[in-house]
């Protein structure tokens, strides 16, 4: 079910915007569009196939943990 939804979404985005860019010869836009679409497909496949990856927010916890611990000690 999930994979069908993903395919429909990807096909829909390509069908709506690519002809427009092709007609106006927006080559650079096409590259950025493809890159973002590939990134979206990548995350979509991970979600649909239930592949377990480390949480994308892990870096936020990693960076802000010292600050958070310091503030918690100071203000409680």
């Amino acid at each position, binding site marked *: 079910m*999930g994979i069908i*939804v*993903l395919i429909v*979404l*990807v096909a*829909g*985005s390509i069908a*709506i*915007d690519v002809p*427009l*860019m092709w007609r*106006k010869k*927006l080559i*650079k*836009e096409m590259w*950025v*569009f493809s890159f*973002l*679409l590939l*990134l*979206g*497909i990548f*995350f*979509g496949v*991970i*979600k649909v196939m239930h592949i377990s*990856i480390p*949480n*994308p*927010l892990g870096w*936020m*916890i990693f960076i*802000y*943990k010292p*600050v*958070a611990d310091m*503030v*918690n000690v*100071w*203000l*409680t």
Partner: protein
Amino acid sequence: MIKTGVNKAMLEKGKISTRQLTILVTLLTIGDSILVIPPSTTHYARQNAWISSLIGMAVGLLAIYMYSKVAKLYPKLTLIQIIQKVFGKWLGTLLSLLTLMYFLVVTVGSMREVGDFVTSEMLPGTPIPATLILFILIVIMATRLGIEVIGRTGEIFTPMVIILFLILTVAIIPQMEIVRMLPILEDGIKPVLRGSISISAYTFLEPVVFLMFLPYVNQPQKITKSLLLGCFLGGIIIFLTIAVSILVLGPDLTTRDIYPSYNIARRISVGGIFERVEAMIALLWMLTLFIEVTLYFYAFVLGLSQLLNLKEFRVLTLPTGLILVALTPLIAPNYSYYNTVFDNYWVYYVITFGLFLPLVLLGVAMFRRALSKDLKFRN
């Protein structure tokens, strides 16, 4: 005045009025805070959370004043262009990418709240992506139509938001008890300050996104006033929400409940006739959250195309929407995980970009200006 250089043909040609700016700031400040912020503030500040909200509002007004100062220094540039101008090519590109990622992460977080709320309270059993796809399609439509349409949408929604909020607040007055707010400051000021960190970061520093839209305001000289007014009005609504939550539910129930203001709307019963109005607060929340997600989404797409010198930003909306829908369930396995991350780490992430980045921009710009004056004086 610092010269803004060659101003290329602007990607966005729309203009918004100062009144629309005020309304958008108010709606963004209310945003998701009206449902999500009461439990996380009362968790630390207990019955004194209303003092935290006042402290947060003071911080927010100062921050908003700072944003308008930054915008005055570079009146024709958006935040991404300002960063590139101030920090040069390499450092500027790096910082711009980080800022764009911040916009994306805030959008993902807000979308996560939409999904959780709709599935847990209104449509149990619906798959979360179904809600998200419908929501993001409307956001994409608004973004493609441009800033003018978003401004007018805000104007149309505002009477509705105010009337719904007033009905909810007035109808619950019989169930308030002032004793739930006592004793005031029994544990000293420290827990109140800790609570005000959550509220100031999550509610009052998010208007940093308006640095992306200030060049499109039609009367630049009135920006400061309308920004401050918008933040003040939003702050009053948040203050009332928190105060009502404490007065009706008390600090314990407010902390344990995921959505206290939704729970309060459930308790409304005027004469046994006026009941079951919680769908109204859901509607109110959907309207304000739509504005918040749209503005952040727009800022991401517009900023990315300005960074890469694209001619057209609307074509990037659909793939970005796909990324958002796919990324939203991935950032947190469940609500309590999201809540822990939000309470402990997310707030500092927002402070980094909402407070420190504009402060550094302002400092560097002031320093450069003083330096150039000095050089001129010597020559």
